[in-house]
């Protein structure tokens, strides 16, 4: 390794050294040297040519979220880089390990409004864990190594490396003997012993304790520990939107999802509990509702690897900074066994009297296709066949998926939670499909979100990906906004009525199988056909248009005040 290499070759070499197996991107002027060098590395790592940089970013996220490894996306300067901003923000909000590599104009013209110049490090400063503007070839190995180190240690997140074209073109002998100099970056993984004992004391004395499990449990690979801890203590377990799959929902201690579209009994239990043990969740406002009225009787224990999350939204009595797995292991050791049957019985009673899924199960007598017909069939199929990942988009269909599918394994439910990025699902599925070619990757999305990024179908076809099945819950509206307009704005449907193409024919135009389902009888057959077809399938489920997601906490209200069903005279959702 004493030969001189170009900066671009050094970039490729650095990726290989980081164990990168796939990157998602689009070439362009300022990143062309990297693509020139990449040609020689096509046996070392795979490059997926996306149709839009946003798609490349979400694909990298889908890869990262399903595998736990770092997703890598690449774009050129200017518009290429700014198109990555949405997925970077998404990764930031959902703590997804992502490294974004962008080309920058030559260092000689940086700051002079050169062609396709954008200050992407300035733009992404608030939405990255860290970012770099690399102007010298000497700095490339270090910057890339540090970026990968930061992206997936501590609380994971996105890191951007912006490399000028002249640094990519320069030649030098790389020095791989890199010692990271990050004296200020020391994530705490071991929970403080004293605080862990304090937590044990609180939990042991609690009459009505609850465990709330978030994304941190999944990212730490702590689902076994969570299960052991719950079983040892008999404490009921809530799983947040991003915690779905961290604890099997068919487990006797699982009570379900909290929050804006969580179940009534779960939110009531939170309002009644005396100790709330939150592990790996960040008390997002979609979970807490009005924070000042959240869990008023609870003494809160909060385990998070990021100290800044503790006490940010909810007052916390016992803060534990650490890795969910390590902390749970310590807690299992310290915690005496206990059973809390009375409390659990109480929650189950609440559940029985506010039978959450009932309104979906008690199907009104109509020939129209209802969204939950699709979910019922999908849930049956997924449970029977196993071996799946589900990627959802953002909106009503997303909440129905969270509610109506029985989640049981970590990293099988992938969605854009914090950022709520419509258009996330199709490209994220592309990333997941590349990571898991032998599994069935289901996309559940709305007709609105699908129209934002469906161009990645072309990528899916070009890459020969055959294991993605897309279910569009097509109601011809921006449904969640329409729901709010209906419930809170007196049915003033301002700009939510949404037309679209014939999705089946659009799919066919992309060269994938397209199906349309308009009646309940067609649902099972279409899903079956999707499995039988060796290739990507798009199913356009044309559902009844004005069905709402319930229960629901109106924005700014306490989670104790849920709207449990359609509030007007018409209890019938088809009205």
């Amino acid at each position, binding site marked *: 390794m004493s030969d001189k290499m170009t900066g671009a070759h050094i970039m490729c070499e650095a990726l290989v050294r980081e164990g990168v197996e796939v990157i998602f991107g689009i070439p362009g002027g300022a990143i062309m040297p990297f693509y020139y060098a990449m040609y020689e590395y096509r046996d070392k790592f795979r490059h997926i040519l996306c149709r839009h940089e946003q798609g490349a970013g979400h694909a990298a996220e889908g890869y990262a979220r399903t595998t736990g490894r770092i997703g890598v996306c690449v774009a050129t300067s200017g518009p290429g880089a700014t198109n990555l901003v949405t997925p970077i923000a998404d990764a930031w909000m959902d703590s997804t390990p992502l490294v974004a590599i962008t080309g920058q104009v030559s260092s000689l013209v940086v700051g002079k409004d050169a062609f396709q110049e954008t200050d992407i490090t300035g733009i992404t400063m608030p939405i990255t864990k860290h970012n770099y503007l690399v102007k010298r070839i*000497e700095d490339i190995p270090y910057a890339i190594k540090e970026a990968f180190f930061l992206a997936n240690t501590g609380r994971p997140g996105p890191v951007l490396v912006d490399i000028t074209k002249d640094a990519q073109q320069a030649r030098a*002998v790389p020095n791989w003997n890199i010692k990271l100099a*990050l*004296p*200020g970056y020391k994530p705490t993984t071991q929970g403080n012993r004293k605080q862990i004992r304090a937590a044990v004391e609180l939990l042991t004395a609690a009459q009505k304790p609850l465990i709330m499990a978030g994304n941190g449990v999944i990212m730490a690979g702590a689902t076994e520990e969570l299960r052991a801890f719950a079983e040892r203590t008999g404490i009921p377990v809530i799983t947040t939107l991003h915690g779905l799959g961290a604890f099997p929902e068919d487990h006797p201690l699982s009570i379900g999802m909290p929050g804006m579209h969580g179940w009534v009994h779960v939110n009531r239990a939170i309002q009644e509990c005396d100790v709330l043990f939150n592990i790996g969740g960040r008390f997002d406002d979609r979970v807490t509702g009005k924070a000042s009225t959240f869990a008023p009787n609870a003494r809160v224990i909060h385990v998070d690897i990021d100290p*800044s999350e503790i006490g940010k939204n909810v007052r916390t009595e016992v803060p534990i900074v650490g890795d969910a797995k390590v902390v749970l292991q310590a807690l299992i050791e310290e915690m005496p066994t206990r059973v809390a049957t009375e409390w659990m019985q109480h929650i189950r009673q609440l559940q029985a009297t506010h039978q959450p899924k009932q309104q979906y199960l008690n199907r009104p007598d109509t020939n129209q296709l209802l969204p939950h017909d699709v979910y019922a069939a999908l849930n049956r199929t997924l449970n029977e066949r196993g071996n799946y990942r589900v990627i959802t988009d953002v909106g009503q269909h997303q909440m129905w998926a969270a509610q109506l599918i029985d989640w049981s394994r970590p990293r099988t439910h992938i969605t854009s939670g914090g950022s709520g990025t419509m258009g996330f699902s199709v490209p994220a599925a592309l990333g997941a499909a590349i990571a898991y070619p032998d599994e069935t990757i289901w996309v559940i999305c709305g007709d609105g979100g699908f129209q934002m990024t469906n161009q990645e179908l072309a990528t899916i076809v070009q890459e020969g990906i055959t294991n993605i099945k897309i279910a569009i819950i097509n109601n011809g509206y921006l449904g969640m906004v329409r729901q709010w307009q209906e419930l809170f704005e007196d049915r003033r449907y301002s700009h939510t009525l949404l037309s679209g193409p014939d999705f089946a024919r659009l799919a066919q135009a992309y060269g994938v199988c397209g199906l349309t389902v308009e009646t309940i009888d067609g649902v099972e057959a279409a899903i079956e056909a999707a499995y039988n077809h060796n290739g990507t399938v798009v199913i356009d489920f044309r559902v009844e248009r004005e069905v709402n997601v319930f229960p629901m906490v109106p924005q700014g209200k306490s989670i104790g005040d849920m709207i449990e069903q359609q509030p007007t005279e018409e209890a019938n959702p088809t009205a």
Partner: protein
Amino acid sequence: MKKHTLVALMQDRPGVLTRAVSLFRRRGFNIESLTVGHSETPGVSRMTLVVESEAVEQVVKQLYRLVEVLKVSDVTDDPAVEREMALVKVHCTNTNRSEIVTLTQLFDAKIVDVASTSIIVEMTGSPNKVQNFVDVIRPFGIKEMMRTGRVAMVRGARTHQGSDYVGVEENGHVAAPTWN
């Protein structure tokens, strides 16, 4: 709301000040004063900031999320030396010049420039004292003023040293590797 004085040590890397300032803006922290400069340790900058907040703990925690930040200390309740400097260009006439000179002497301030219709006073002291001086001198007509914001250092043997956090050979710059 209580005012807090924080002392932060951070690696002197490109963009670190922007990162800190951008953080305060987007998190909605109300910064009254922010001063940054070199510390005793090469490669380490020292920032003094005064923040008006009920949630100063969040400010500290958010600062720690910046990878360059080495140490943040809330010195509000510690015995500390706090100083600020102001350069004040005061309007003066032949008749009131001596009055301004007298006031300047009373405040232990320095006159650093004298012209026919103006005087520049360099006032250094505790932020309160600087404020007092500014209030007293204002009726004469302040033509220009520049205040530095406060810097703080805890009294006694206790230290906030950059070298506690940064190795001598690790100067904190990205350009750490040597080249053959």
